[in-house]
Structures are given as structure tokens and as C-alpha cells.
């Protein structure tokens, strides 16, 4: 098990949805990057991602990694936010039969999993239907 520092340093992204964008080509990155892969610029400024978007692909995980055993089956999707940023996350509070592509979702702050008996409770973002 890793030390808490690994978890702690991702908090700006996982709790506060911090991103950055390239001053030169305006491309937005989540997670933030030190160099823009589009234009090579190192001039990037801090910003936040949009909190609503649409599902562009999804799957139902039936055979999960061990730390997600008690949650399976669950849905994981790739969402395109209204600002163009794409990210992966679980889609919850929704029956699988009702899930569809292009479905509108919003980001909510949730518990994701536990790092074992005496480990960290891991939090972050999940998607919920936004109708």
C-alpha cells in the first residue's frame, strides 16, 4: 500500500476538479500538464473543468479489481464535459437499462473505494444523470 502522500497530491483534481489550459492554443487539460501536447507551449494557467456533460461511451464492469469487489456490477463511462474536457468515471444513481450514449450527466463528489482495513477512504468525482 502506498503512503498517504500519493493520495494527498491528487486532491486538487479529485476534490476540486482543478485543470489547466494552454495560454497559446487555449486547449484545456484534465489532469493538468506541464507542457501542452498540442503546441508544445509551457505557458499554462490554472482553471477548473465544467461540471456537466454527456456520456460518450460506457461499460458495465462485471469482473472488478479487488478494491471494487463490493460494488460490482457498476458502470464506468467516458464523459465529454461542456467545456470539451473528456474524463473517465463511474456513472451512478442510474439503472443500467436507462443508461445511454449522449446521456446528460453532472459531476458529484463521492467515496470511490477503501484501501483495505486500515487504509485511506478514497474520494473523488462520479457522474450522476442530470435531467
Amino acid at each position, binding site marked *: 500500500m502506498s503512503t498517504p502522500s500519493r493520495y494527498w497530491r491528487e486532491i486538487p483534481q479529485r476534490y476540486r476538479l482543478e485543470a489547466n489550459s494552454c495560454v497559446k492554443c487555449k486547449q484545456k487539460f484534465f*489532469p493538468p500538464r506541464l507542457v501542452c501536447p498540442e503546441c508544445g507551449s509551457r505557458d499554462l494557467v490554472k482553471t477548473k473543468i465544467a461540471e456537466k456533460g454527456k456520456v460518450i461511451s460506457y461499460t458495465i464492469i462485471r469482473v472488478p479489481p479487488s478494491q471494487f469487489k463490493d460494488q460490482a456490477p457498476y458502470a464506468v463511462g467516458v464523459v465529454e464535459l461542456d467545456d470539451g474536457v473528456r474524463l473517465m468515471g463511474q456513472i451512478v444513481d442510474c439503472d443500467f437499462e436507462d443508461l445511454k450514449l449522449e446521456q446528460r450527466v453532472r459531476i458529484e463528489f463521492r467515496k*470511490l473505494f477503501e484501501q483495505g482495513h486500515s487504509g485511506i477512504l478514497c474520494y*473523488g468525482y462520479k457522474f450522476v444523470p442530470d435531467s
Partner: protein
Amino acid sequence: MREVAVIGIGMTKWGELWNKSLRDIYVETALMAIDDSGVDHIDSMYIGSMSSGIFVGQEHIASLLADYLGCAPVPSTRVETACASGGLALRLGFMEVASGMSDIVLVSGVEKMTDVGGDEATYALGTAADQEYECYHGITFPGLYALIAVAHMHKYGTTRKQLAEVAVKNHRNGSKNPLAQFPFEVTIDDVLNSVRVADPLRILDCSPITDGAAAAIICPVELAKKLKKPVVKIIGSGHATDYIAISQRKDMTWLESTYRAGKSAYEMAGKSPDDIDVFEVHDCFTIAELCVMEALGIVDKGKSGEAVERGRTALEGDIPVNPSGGLKSKGHPVGATGIAQVVEIVKQLREESGKRQVRGARIGLTQNMGGSGASTAVHIFERE
């Protein structure tokens, strides 16, 4: 650059090899390649291995395996690019021989995956994805390819049955390969009714967990001729990368690293997809084979499902893909896969493939991919 040839190949039966250790599997296979080539020494060696540290708790296997092969003190290097490790071991060996740095190089791959249970194997394979922004959300490798499959089905109308056709075709080929882990046929219904893993993918859409190794000896073409071995030249080599997380790619159905690596290899070889007689590609999941066919330019975008359904990629089709049975039937010891593809293509070009021989094959291509497509190695071979 000097011209480079493959003069020896080695591969043993793959599967759950409980009575054999990492070093047993590796040495047995490497010796086969050395014996097949007829050389009395090697100058250098490369070993593709994705995750020996997690699978058997052993790093530093470049030296361990040189030692147990009785080859120390030759230089030995482990190469890691997830499931493309084997393909990259070949590329590094190719560059070493082509450059004139070494004459006889052993290029190889090995993975011993069944010394850990299923959970740990799933974890080890997951490390090829983005730990912080993919795995953290509960995705698995079948899950990543399921996301690609859903996007492909949505964009191009690819059907669930077309995915199953890939598994059926590869198992049919694999049933003719005595070294395959699962050398038997499956039906469309078997695939469509198998256990669900990550919708829409089922267990028979997925390559298995396998113990295995593969090896090849490469040298300058001039030396190969002196040794009086059948000369299979490496005429093209390409390698490229892509965003590691699939969400970052502009089009999840498009394997940019495969496209780029393929383009480099085609250009070096002076060949186009139409010139290739036989393909060995990275079908870690059924959808992967379809996306790879499109990225390599074997078929147009969105046309891969139809091509498989019409039998074009079968052994007797006009574009035979994975005559070995592919990762699906032959098995997928991740670090070894890229070299096993070379073993198959060399057998095909030497016309030593028995019942799965593609008739008249002179030019073959291997495509070996890491993670959800963030690394690809492509090589093109020609029989002289």
C-alpha cells in the same frame, strides 16, 4: 544500415505451466531459437517482459536470464512497454544489428503469469493503464476495450456478432496450432453466451492469462547467407506512442500509435498494406483486432467488422489475420506476445505452418500493442 534477417525461432507449448518457473520457460525457449539458428554464441540479448516484478516478484531478469541461459557476460537488457514489450525487444535488437554494433542478437519475451491469483494478475495488467485517472475509477482492461467497442459500434454500426466472429476465426486458426493454449474451436453462440466481463465484452472476447516465452535470433543478412539458413529479412520497423488514457484521444475508435508505427514500417519497407500476404496482430480483445485492421490500413475505417464477417481475414481469405490463433486462442503471456508473432510469421514465410499455412506467403507483418493502444511496434518481414 545493414540488412537484418531472422535465422532462428523458438517457442514451446503455452498455457498454465505450473511445473515451470520463469527461468525454466525462458531458457527452454531461447535454447530452441539458438539451436534453430545454428549459431554457437550470441553477442547481445533483449528480453520483453511487462511485469515480472508483480507476477513473480523478480526484477533484474535481464541478468537472471542471461545467467541461466549460460550467456553471461553478454549484454542483456529487459524492455518494457506493457504488452508491446516483445515487439520493442525485437526493434531494439534490430537497431543493434542494423547499426553494426552487434552481429548475433537474441530477441525474446517472457511472462510467467499464473504464479499469482486472478486478482493480482488483473492488478498487474491494469498497471498498463493510467493508475490515477483510469484504474482509480474501477476500470479494468476488458473495461477499457469495452469502452472502445461501444464507441466503435455507435460510430460505425459494428455489431456484437461481428466481434464474436473475430474470436471464432482465431479459435479456428488456433485449433491448428499445437502450441496454442486453447487449441479448439468455438461457435458464435459460445461467444455470445459466455460469461459477461465488461459489457458488451464477454470472456470469449478476451485473451487469456498465460505462461509462455518466445525467442528469435537475428543477424546481418550476409551472415545469414553464410550460415545457409532460410533468410527471412526484417524490411520494416516502426514504433509509436499515444495518449495513455483513452479519454484523452480525439477518437477512441482510432489507434493512432498503430497507424503511426504502421506508416513508419510501410515506408521503411517500401510496401503498402496490399503487399502484405499475412498479418499477426494484437487481438487482446476481439474489438482490438478490428481497430488494428483499420489503423494499419488493411480495411477502411469502420469496415473491419464486415471484413471479418465475410471471411476476408480467415486463413483462406484475401487478408489472412492471425493464422496462429492470435492472442485469443494461442494465449497472451504479455511480454512474449510480440516475439511469438515473429515466430509465427517466420514459420509462415518458411512454409512451416502445417495446417494453418497461408499459401504462397512471402511478406508478413506483425503488430504488437501495449495497454489500450498507447504503444505499438510494427515489423514487416520478407522471405528472400
